[in-house]
């Protein structure tokens, strides 16, 4: 199954709408609630990142029997220092983003903790392409 969501830049009034729709879809597939939560926390953080930091982008979800792959592709401006961005507490968020309850520097660290595989391709001045992989088989 393939699902795509368009994410606008800077429009917090729709922040979470894509993740909310994706969550409804996962619920319909009868996945265990703990698995859904893990996926949705990562996708929601990524959606907030696109709105807060990028010029807009897309979330593309591929669902198969055993795995879910979520690609988050924005249109720039890229992350200048990825090592710093991965550090808990590091943030470039504006005051406006912080007033929304975000921008605490937990986004990428939370995403990393929630998924089974993470790949980030980015550079300053270019777009960011994040791929998240989730295994659906419950841990023994």
């Amino acid at each position, binding site marked *: 199954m393939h699902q795509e969501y368009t994410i606008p830049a800077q429009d*917090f*009034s729709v*922040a*979470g709408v894509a*993740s*909310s729709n994706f*969550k409804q879809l996962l619920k319909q597939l009868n996945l265990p*609630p*703990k698995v859904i*939560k893990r996926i*949705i*926390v990562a996708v*929601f*953080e990524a959606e907030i990142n696109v709105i807060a930091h990028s010029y807009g982008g897309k979330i593309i979800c591929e669902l198969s029997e055993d795995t879910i792959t979520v690609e988050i592709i924005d249109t720039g401006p890229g992350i200048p220092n990825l090592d710093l961005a991965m550090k808990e507490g590091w943030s470039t968020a504006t005051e406006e983003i912080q*007033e*929304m*309850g*975000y921008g*605490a*520097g*937990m*986004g990428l660290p*939370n995403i990393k*903790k929630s998924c089974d595989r993470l790949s980030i391709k980015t550079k300053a001045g270019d777009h960011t392409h994040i791929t998240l992989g989730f295994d659906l088989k419950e841990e023994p």
Partner: protein
Amino acid sequence: MKLKDIIACVDGQLICGESHLEDEIARGFASDLMSDVLTILEDDILLITGLSNNQAIRTAEMSDIRNILLVRNKKPSQSMIEMAKELNISLSYTSYSLFKASALLFQEGLKPVY
């Protein structure tokens, strides 16, 4: 603790979600930072927050949190109330600070997440 006892304990008021009043809630988490809320793996906790905007409701939805207590007399906007109703999340508020509300609830037996 039942939600109705939580609201009484902090001299609060329920804004929406009457069907939740009998919900049994074991643990609470107090934060104005939604990214911290998203790290909590437990479901059905009470979210105690001073963040009164739609993002608090969205975060609760993503985290499977069904009850929110707003502190510091932060009354929710109409759009927040509509969103909470739609997602079946209860909203209550108290004039107490985050610290006072959390302390009183802890004293009454609401457990921390960690």
